[in-house]
């Protein structure tokens, strides 16, 4: 029978580098993301985790749910701590070990952007992954630079939802002209695993922006996590593409296209989005999609 995703079963039944017992909420996208990321990277990986949901998910002293070495680091230092690890490993001759900084959107878009920019400018050989659940979820759903316009959070409460656009982190990272910038989504696991496999082979700074659903923060039923994340790509608000050395490639042309409104209606946090915000957001998403298609077609 045809499998839907081109992921060999041996990979999924092979060694579990992410193990159960995780302290994540039911339906957590970040848990799934780490599981898939490690399936793509394999065991020769070291992870640096700043303050974020994964600080908790991974477990409490003296236990860890991951079977790879992990260093917890300060909130804003994911990228540069990973650089430090990389330097140390290179001095020890362990050049084949991938160092992955695994940060949330807060630690990437906001407080961590300085050290991330520094790493990118130096093109340090690390893989930086931002699993984006679009707010400071770990501390209780406060808004971040990654929160989309019109979303409810505890600091953009009812009646005063977020007015500002979501920061375009991909453009920021592309401006640094690093060898690899990509988006990926837990709803397209084969593409995601491929990207992590590929990241291992690229030298220099690699940036992967993941969309990671959060049931309590997005106000959704945990069972709908993946479906809603897929809808984000179908509504073109989270296109899945990669840019390798400046060459664009659109990885997912969604077979089904849905209106942005349909995507937003699935989540309680967008209940107060205004018509203007919706219109603006759709225009921007459509424009970004058109630009990506054009950039990708240039390569073909």
């Amino acid at each position, binding site marked *: 029978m045809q499998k839907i995703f081109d992921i060999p079963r041996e990979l999924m039944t092979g060694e579990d580098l992410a193990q159960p017992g995780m302290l994540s909420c039911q339906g957590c996208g970040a848990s799934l993301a780490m599981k898939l990321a490690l399936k793509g990277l394999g*065991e*020769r990986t*070291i992870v*640096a985790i700043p303050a974020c949901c994964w*600080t*908790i998910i*991974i*477990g*409490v*002293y*003296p*236990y*860890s749910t*991951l*079977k*790879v*070495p*992990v*260093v*917890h*680091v*300060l909130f*804003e*230092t994911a990228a*540069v*701590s*990973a*650089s*430090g*690890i*990389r*330097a*140390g*490993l*290179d*001095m*020890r001759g*362990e050049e084949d*070990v991938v160092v992955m900084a695994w940060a949330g959107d807060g630690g990437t878009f906001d407080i961590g952007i*300085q*050290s991330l*920019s*520094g790493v990118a*400018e*130096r093109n*340090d050989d690390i893989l930086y992954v931002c699993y984006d659940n679009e707010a400071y979820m770990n501390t209780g759903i406060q808004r971040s630079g990654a929160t989309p316009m019109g979303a409810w959070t505890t600091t953009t409460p009812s009646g005063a939802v977020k007015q500002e656009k979501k920061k375009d982190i991909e453009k920021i990272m592309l401006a640094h002209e690093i060898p690899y910038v990509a988006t990926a989504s837990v709803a397209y696991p084969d593409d995601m695993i491929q990207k992590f496999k590929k990241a291992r082979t690229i030298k220099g700074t690699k940036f992967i922006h993941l969309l990671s659903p959060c049931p309590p923060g997005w106000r959704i039923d945990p069972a709908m996590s993946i479906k809603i994340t897929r809808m984000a790509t179908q509504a073109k608000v989270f296109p899945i593409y990669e840019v390798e050395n400046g060459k664009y490639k659109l990885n997912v042309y969604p077979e089904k296209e849905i209106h942005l409104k349909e995507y937003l209606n699935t989540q309680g946090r967008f209940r107060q989005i205004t018509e203007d915000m919706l219109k603006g957001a759709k225009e921007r998403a459509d424009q970004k999609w058109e630009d990506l298609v054009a950039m990708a077609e240039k390569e073909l």
Partner: protein
Amino acid sequence: MKQVIKGNFAVAQGVRLCRVGVISAYPITPQTTIVEELSEICARGEMDAKFIKVESEHSAMAAMVGSSTAGVRSFTATSSQGLLLMHEVLHWAAGARLPIVLSNVNRAVGPGWNIWADQTDSVSQRDTGWVQIYCESNQEVLDSVIMSYKLAEKILLPVMLTYDAFFLSHTSEIVDIPDIEEVDAFLPPYQPEFRLDLDNPRMFGGLISPEYYYEQRYIMHKDALEALEYYPMVCEEFHEKFGREYDVVEEYRTDDAELIIVTAGTITSVTRIVVDRLREQGKNVGMMKLRMFRPVPVERWLDVLGGIPKVVVMDRNITAGLGGVFASEIQAVLYNSETRPVIYPVVVGLGGRDVTPDDVEGIINYALENDKPKDVPLFWGLKQ
């Protein structure tokens, strides 16, 4: 081999001799020449190290956390604002039990921008858990780099060695630079028991409950105290191999002193001259050079200062609303002494204001002439 070199250069040489593996630093006056010199040493191939040219001091220390956890000897340098910016990460590095060595050029804290000698920057980090060593000369600076790694890698706590801006950093002195083989014999390669190891994957520094955090901190405190036992041993071994003598404190003509003046940093050199001068005048004065500030050498301080009638403490630092920090801590230690000296806290030299032999003489005489301190602290040289 003896050379005439500046303090920053001495640090760079010390780092080279210790075969440091990863350096990350951000420029700030007056530390910049350390960074520049290390860049050139690396570029010349004299040292096999990775140099991460970070975009802030906070990131510099964060990179250290990374490389040290990976099991590689790591070094950084900074000063003043940079050290303050690192504050959060200093706590983290010490709590993570990483044997990082940082050389801090003691510079005043703004505003206003002041790039000259002042110890406020490092003393304000005294709660971070770092070992702190205060150096008096360029030779001492170089030697301290080497000894610091030996100490750090034994007790698994980071060490901050400090020295005055411009007076040492940019002033040339004669420094005997040892051969790297000699240093190798003294300082073996760093072989940590726990590091980022794919064969033994562990999680470092994770979430910890009230159930266990308390004990973790207790162990840190206990291990910090171990420095007081171990450092003198390091100094003794260093003395045997390299011929230069160091300790947690240095006593100068304290045997029959009726007054001991406590100093740290370059003021010590000045004070040495004044002590000799006053001794010739028949005054029984002595000096205690405060070398290790953290952990607090309680026994040694009690031992040296305990039975002395008068103790003058010179602080080239200030905590607004309290005064000088060394004085405050010495007082706290001496509280437990059977005989408590009269203590004369003096704040001098903030922001690089020169402290001359005449100043020190004046301070000591003031103490000799007064049964009790007139002002606590005394601001010597305040424009009134």
